[in-house]
């Protein structure tokens, strides 16, 4: 029977025959991941299970990225728990201090995850690796503890929504806009329990970074995974990340889909998700003129080098509005260094930005850019829930990096084309 991409990847990791949506399958995992917020709970469960050793010390990643650099005593204590555990277990992929980056930017960059893998992470944005063609999904800490101990976990085979994206986008429109547009169409529960599978000419044209931006927000539609076929571009990316032996992988022709959503991006404007849900999406012109107090460029959604270049192209030779805090957070140390080498840092500093270390920080209202009551931010992050970036009385608007940078200059939300 022809299989969807999700079914094909699950099949590679189980001895059961994958027969279709709804079936429960037990699968071997390629990588189990947790961070400084979720790992302490996972470790607690791991001990309670009576586990003495992780199933494979090379297949567990612990990334202390959420509150880094540790924001207070409690968060430092949590990292200590994770560090001690990593040492005890001899975990290969443990990251903190100057080596740490936002987990979902860091793991692909280091070649730790790749096409055809099953990756489970105690972080909802684990779905990012779908951009590489990995079946990657978020779970809770105890599920991850189980995976760390047993090397396997169970999945309900998801029905798949096929998303076909065609057309050539205008300037300042890209992966983030495609994804916001889709979430706006199907809603925050539109992909609940389901896989999203992306295809079409506009998807083929995207860089691997752009695909990861899209896959990253599959969870914002309620999805289990956001999958892209792995193609020549994918293999080039993973080869550069130091991997070998990866293969191309695509859905079978004639596979059965739950529904098909078609999007033409040719006339698409930059998209904005307005408060307080990621599906409250409008074209930028409908939000123009709204005064902002903060702009954030970073996160696992848009903190990669392409995003930095996109923001820098707007900020070059311009000044951030004096009423706006423009916070730039390159997502990994490598991206930070590239920004430096490519002269982007100088552009950011000349423009009056605040450049911070790689951290999840403000995206989840952790630290390094918290909003006061009545303040409004435009951010390249992934969630605009009420109070997400600080006060319950603050507002977050989600956009692509060019719109965020242009809005920082204008002091209000604006289409970069009008700057």
């Amino acid at each position, binding site marked *: 029977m022809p299989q969807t991409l999700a079914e094909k990847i699950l099949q590679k990791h189980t001895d059961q025959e994958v027969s279709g949506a709804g079936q429960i399958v037990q699968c071997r995992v390629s990588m189990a991941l947790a961070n400084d917020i979720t790992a302490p709970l996972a470790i607690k469960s791991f001990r309670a299970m009576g586990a003495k050793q992780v199933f494979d010390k090379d297949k567990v990643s612990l990334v202390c990225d959420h509150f880094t650099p540790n924001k207070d005593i409690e968060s430092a204590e949590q990292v200590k728990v994770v560090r001690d555990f990593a040492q005890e277990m001899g975990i290969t992929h443990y990251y903190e201090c100057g080596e740490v980056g936002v987990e979902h930017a860091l793991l692909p960059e280091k070649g730790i995850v790749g096409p055809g893998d099953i990756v489970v992470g105690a*972080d909802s944005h684990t779905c990012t690796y779908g951009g590489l063609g990995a079946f990657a999904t978020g779970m809770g800490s105890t599920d991850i503890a189980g995976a760390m101990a047993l090397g396997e976990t169970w999945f309900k085979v998801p029905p798949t929504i096929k998303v076909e994206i065609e057309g050539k986008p205008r300037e300042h429109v890209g992966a983030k806009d495609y994804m916001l547009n889709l979430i706006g169409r199907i809603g925050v529960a539109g992909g609940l329990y389901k896989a999203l599978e992306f295809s079409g000419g506009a998807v083929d044209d995207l860089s691997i970074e752009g695909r990861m931006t899209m896959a990253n927000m599959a969870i914002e539609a309620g999805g289990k995974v956001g999958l892209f076929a792995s193609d020549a571009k994918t293999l080039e990316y993973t080869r550069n990340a130091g991997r070998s032996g990866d293969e191309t992988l695509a859905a079978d022709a004639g596979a059965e889909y739950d529904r098909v959503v078609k999007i033409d991006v040719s006339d698409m404007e930059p998209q904005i998700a307005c408060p307080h849900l990621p599906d409250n999406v409008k074209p930028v012109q409908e939000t123009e003129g709204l005064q902002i107090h903060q702009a954030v460029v970073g996160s696992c959604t848009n903190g990669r080098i392409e995003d930095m270049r996109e923001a820098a192209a707007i900020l070059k030779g311009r000044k951030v509005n004096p009423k706006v805090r423009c916070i730039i957070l390159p997502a990994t140390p490598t991206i930070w260094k590239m920004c430096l080498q490519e002269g982007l840092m100088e552009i950011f500093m000349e423009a009056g930005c605040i450049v911070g270390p790689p951290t999840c920080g403000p995206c989840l209202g952790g630290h390094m850019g918290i909003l006061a009551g009545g303040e409004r931010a435009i951010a390249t992050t992934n969630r605009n*829930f009420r109070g997400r970036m600080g006060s319950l009385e603050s507002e977050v608007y989600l956009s692509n990096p060019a719109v965020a940078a242009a809005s920082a200059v204008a002091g209000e939300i604006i289409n970069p084309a009008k700057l």
Partner: protein
Amino acid sequence: MKVKGTAHRVGDHIDTDAIIPARFLVTTDPEELGANCMEGHEEGWGKRLKKNDVIVAGENFGCGSSREHAPISILGAGVPVVVAKSFARIFYRNGFNMGLVLLEVGEEIDKIGDTHEIEVDVVVGEIRNLTTDETIKCAPVPPFMQEILNAGGLVSYAKKKLS
């Protein structure tokens, strides 16, 4: 298991940042997390929750992050059961793993109003609204998840597998 308590209604898409905001994620202690349950929904809202009360929600309850602190904070606040029109996927798994009972009732959710007294029979899968004298049948727990529940949660399930 039967639970009798007051229903507390909330709307659709209650996210995990509403259930337990990130600033409280510097602990794994159920009591501390319970004290701040629903602080991102409305300041002080959690104070209305008494032992054995039930949160009754709309669509997609628990959407957003994978933080297991969310079901833990609900349990920490004394709430053993959440009834919703539907649940977000990660939250659903987490709830069962933590021993928080989640019942999905679809459209019938509107038969339960705020402050109604209800009795939930988890084994039979039935909710009795004592205020209106109506009964709601729930979708059964999927067999595989029942297996995990029967083992006493995921920790015990994995413990058995490891030994």
